[in-house]
């Protein structure tokens, strides 16, 4: 029965995913296929070879129909079972294939790389057909069955991994398995003998396994014995439903005629064993290429197998009972759910609400309709499927789509959403803000896209790629203002090269150079007094003055770079460059910038001493000016810097320095000072600078230098400074 009794369903947790247990009997399947001489017998199902020669020419002898041997039938059907299994569960549902004649031949192992129909086919080709001349006395399926039990005790990679991962609770990893035996049994007693033998072997092997690390005791084994007999004969073995032989072993017997019936039986078994269900896609439009009907189109049906959870909604709601395409298996027909092909296709940019995606396997993989459908999907197109409803309303319930060469049946939600009509994001927190840096964050997202990194590539830091991705996000967001009006530098094209580079984990010398160039460029802009894209939102009037704007910009840039300065020496060099450039005004702007010097100097004193030497000397000279100021105006002026060293020797008074000190003080500036500053600034632009002032050192210039050389006199007159 496809749909389990509701009462029999395990009690489910809330969002418990309805999957079979990781280590259910389905984890390990052993095929034991009889290779004894009697399997070489004909199945007596005839394959017509003559079907294609309708207009037979005279004199051609009609081809005699051929028939397959029992062995061929068994191999074909078991391979079909494996094909479906591997299509739907490419991982961790494992098959071990054993052939038995006078001894057993194990064709593959539990290892993942051995799990493919290709592997099995090559191994089977090497085995060849049964040898009818072999002594039937020494041939037996028992060899294979014993080997199957031994094989079930062997630990699989997944079991090993899980046991290691679970550590103390490794006993949660169960060891269950299923043996599918394809044979030609002699009688019911023979079957019983086989069952007893397996039971004994399990007990024996479990004892062995108890003392081994690489073996696990079998907790549950399911024997599925398929008795194959040629068509037209009466069976000597009766069908028997599943029965418990011991707590360890259950057994069921299927007695099947070879050929078509056997194929159907194994198809049903694979569905039962692996919780599969069938869907028939109907109304697939296909061009007919046969000669008679060129360029006409017909509709085809294709049957697919997949995990039965893709139909969960149907059998829960009872809807499946009404569906036209369904019929019960008891009638010998296939139970399938019919879904209709929908011509309006979906585009890949749409994100559907999908509650499940299940791998599919076509039941008839070679047929033309099947391969047309699968090729269509493999080419990257998706198809929506419509659920036929009694009411005639149209409901899209599924979607077929391929991802990387695998086709999935997606289950789409077709019910009312409980999340409908939510408050719009613009009504919530931050919803009224309109100047988010949406485009910039989009760019940020593009830079932080993910890509698969091969598992073999090992990072020296020992971090997994996903952790490195998070680390990159952390670096990129150390300073990231969210709105346009909060930032200046990110609105400036000129800063882009630096902003892109500084977030990198490591910088090359070339990167540092690019950053420095960016800084120099900014310095240049400042000298040219280029306008900055500073937002005036929220400020009254015209917003801050140009030099204030630059101050804001430099501060922001410094904040950005500071968050990265600790990373490497090269990052630090970029920071140093900024500090040096912003605080070292070009000479012609010297005066203009005086007003800011105090502040800048404070910044500098916070910094460590890793500065270029010329920078330092400049700083020293500045400081000495400040000291002199202090000497002049001790009464009113607050000390420039509390830890300034005492002057070594008292310098002569400098009358021209009078107006400067108030600018440096921390106290309020008097109206007079402000006025005189302004006048000074204006006046200074109206005349050519004196030679002496222009080439002064610390605003001092030694006059009559030539006399000094001639007279040896020490002239104490200094150059006039600003007046």
């Amino acid at each position, binding site marked *: 029965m496809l749909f389990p009794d509701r009462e029999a369903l395990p009690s489910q947790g809330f969002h418990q995913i309805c999957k079979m247990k990781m280590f259910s009997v389905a984890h390990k399947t052993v095929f034991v296929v009889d290779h004894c001489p009697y399997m070489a017998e004909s199945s007596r199902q005839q394959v017509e070879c003559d079907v294609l020669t309708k207009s037979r020419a005279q004199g051609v002898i009609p081809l005699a129909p051929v028939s397959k041997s029992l062995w061929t039938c068994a191999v074909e059907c078991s391979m079909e079972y494996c094909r479906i299994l591997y299509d739907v569960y490419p991982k961790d549902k494992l098959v071990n294939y054993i052939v038995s004649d006078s001894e057993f031949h194990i064709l593959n192992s539990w290892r993942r790389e051995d799990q493919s129909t290709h592997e099995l086919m090559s191994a089977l080709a090497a085995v060849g057909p049964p040898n009818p001349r072999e002594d039937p006395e020494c041939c037996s399926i028992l060899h294979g069955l014993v080997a199957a039990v031994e094989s079930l005790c062997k630990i699989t990679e997944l079991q090993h991994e899980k046991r290691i991962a679970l550590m103390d609770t490794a006993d949660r990893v169960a060891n269950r398995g299923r043996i599918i035996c394809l044979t030609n049994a002699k009688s019911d007693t023979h079957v019983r003998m086989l069952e007893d033998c397996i039971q004994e072997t399990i007990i024996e092997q479990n004892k062995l396994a108890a003392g081994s690390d690489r073996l696990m005791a079998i907790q549950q084994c399911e024997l599925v014995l398929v008795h194959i007999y040629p068509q037209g004969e009466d069976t000597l073995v009766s069908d028997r439903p599943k029965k418990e032989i011991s707590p360890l072993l259950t057994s069921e017997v299927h007695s099947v005629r070879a050929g078509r019936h056997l194929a159907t039986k194994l198809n049903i078994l694979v569905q039962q064993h692996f919780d599969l269900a069938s869907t028939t896609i109907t109304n697939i439009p296909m061009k007919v290429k046969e000669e008679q009907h060129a360029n006409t189109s017909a509709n085809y049906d294709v049957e697919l197998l997949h995990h039965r959870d893709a139909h969960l909604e149907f059998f829960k709601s009872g809807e499946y009972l009404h569906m036209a395409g369904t019929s019960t298996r008891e009638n010998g027909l296939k139970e399938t759910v019919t879904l209709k092909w929908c011509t309006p296709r979906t585009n890949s940019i749409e994100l559907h609400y999908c509650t499940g995606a299940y791998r599919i396997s076509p039941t008839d993989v070679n047929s033309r309709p099947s391969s047309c459908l699968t090729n269509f999907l493999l080419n990257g197109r998706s198809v929506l499927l419509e659920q036929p409803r009694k009411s005639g309303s149209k409901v899209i319930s599924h979607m077929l789509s391929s991802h990387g060469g695998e086709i999935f049946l997606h289950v789409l939600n077709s019910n009312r959403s409980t999340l409908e009509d939510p408050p719009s994001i613009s009504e919530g927190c931050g919803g009224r803000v309109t100047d988010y840096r949406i485009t910039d964050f989009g760019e940020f997202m593009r830079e932080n896209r993910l890509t*698969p*990194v091969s598992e073999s590539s090992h990072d020296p830091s020992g971090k997994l790629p996903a952790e490195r991705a998070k680390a990159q996000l952390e670096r990129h967001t150390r300073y990231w203002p969210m709105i346009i009006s909060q930032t200046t530098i990110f609105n400036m094209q000129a800063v882009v090269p630096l902003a892109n580079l500084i977030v990198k984990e490591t910088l090359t010398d070339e990167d540092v150079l690019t950053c420095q160039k960016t800084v120099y460029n900014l310095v240049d802009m400042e000298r040219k007094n280029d306008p900055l894209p500073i937002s005036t939102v929220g400020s009254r009037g015209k917003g801050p003055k140009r030099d204030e704007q630059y101050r804001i910009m430099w501060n922001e840039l410094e904040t950005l770079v500071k968050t990265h300065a600790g990373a490497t020496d090269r990052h630090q060099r970029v920071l140093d460059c900024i500090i040096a450039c912003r605080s070292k005004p070009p000479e012609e702007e010297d005066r203009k910038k005086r007003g800011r010097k105090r502040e800048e100097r404070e910044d500098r004193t916070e910094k460590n001493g890793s500065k270029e030497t010329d920078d330092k000397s400049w700083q020293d000279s500045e400081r000495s000016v400040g000291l002199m100021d202090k000497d002049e105006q001790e009464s009113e002026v607050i000390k420039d810097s509390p830890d300034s060293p005492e002057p070594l020797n008292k310098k002569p008074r400098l009358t021209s320095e009078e107006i400067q000190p108030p600018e440096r003080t921390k106290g309020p500036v008097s109206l007079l000072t402000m006025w005189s500053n302004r006048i000074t600034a204006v006046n200074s632009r109206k005349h050519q600078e004196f030679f002496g002032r222009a080439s002064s050192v610390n605003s001092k210039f030694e006059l009559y230098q030539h006399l000094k050389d001639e007279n040896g006199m020490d002239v104490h007159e200094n150059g006039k400074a600003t007046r």
Partner: protein
Amino acid sequence: MPTVVLMDVSLSMTRPVSLDGIEEFQRKNLAVHGLNMLFEHMASNYRLEFTSLMAFSSLWELLVPFTRDYNALQEALSNLEDYDKTCVEAALNGVSNVVQQEWGSACPCQVVLVTDGSLGIGKGSLRHSLQTLKQRGDDKKFPLPFPFPTKLFIMCIANAEELQMTDAMDNLEELLCLSGGDGQIFTMEGPLCMKSVQTMFGKLIDLVYSPFHAVLHCGNLSSDVQVFPRPEPVVMDEEVEPMPRTVSTDLEIVGFIEIADIASPPVISRHLVLPIAVNKDVDEVGTGTTDELEEEPSASQMAGKSPNFCVLLHGSLKVEGMVALVQLGPEWYGMLYSQADSKKKSNLMMSLFDPGPEPLPWLGKISHLGPISEAADNPYGEDDSKSPFPVQPQVKRSYAQNVTVWIKASGLQCLRLLKCFLSLIKKRLTIKKCPPTVKFM
């Protein structure tokens, strides 16, 4: 996750509560008081929840269909009438119908059954229903378990001792077990009074209706958010990993992926991610005091004007057509994306993937997704013309390779060979008729 409140309005609910003197209450009054408290809480803290109100005795009636209008629910509560006897089975059938009609059979649902613990007598009583559980035909099955995932909360307007004197407690426990075992039975502690009913509903609120608050991180950018509905714990494999996994309160963005690359992935649940003002999460479980409401507009206006990372993220995800991959816990991931409804209102949404290291085969292991900056060449190409996704499986599926299945005669490729042979034979025959000088091949 919608809620159905199933209110017992049988006569036994009108039993007076024996209090010493002052005021006399019926059990019904206590139940209504408790439910009012629940609705008030939901109106202020969980208002996106759809709730419906059903009353039942021997019959059932849908008083308020699923709504977010908590005033309507409270009003309906105040107009309850009294009817005859309790018949839980009929009422549960009603719940099943109402929920499936509205939400289908996949949507998880919460049922709050409010009763006094006297579960009817004779036919139609819960005792009778449970006793005859096994002797029913397909058409008269007991409604539990519901086809949809259910959490059943039974609020007893009675104390545990009272219920244990009869078999009521056993019956209720069996009912809970039948529903799938997810849920709880609440009883009143101490004397039956307003205070103890408040305590009982308070527990329900704490357990089920307290908002789930988390912090969404993207490197150093972050935002306080409410995730609605509450993400539920998930059990992946009851045998290997029986402990349910829960969503962490720190949601960390790992990186970004194009919508076309993530390709409509299967998800176990969807949640709204609503930014919240930080000061708000102090009083989570308050009953929604009225004086707070007065301040709220100004507070929310303030919050609306300060930039929030969620809004920025939402805007960019929408514009770029991308999703953010977010880590919800150890080996558990989800995605954030912009979701627009039919009214063009859009919102930040989070979908949860199956827990595990590789929820989507076409992305490979999530822990092995790294930043593109590490790759030698940009895997998306300089002009975004390519994509590193989907990840190709090592082995091709049967339909993607040239396999041959010989079971059906039509699948036999050798027939084509035969056809060729036949045509050759025909040719040979014609050749034979030709003058002997012409030799065959």
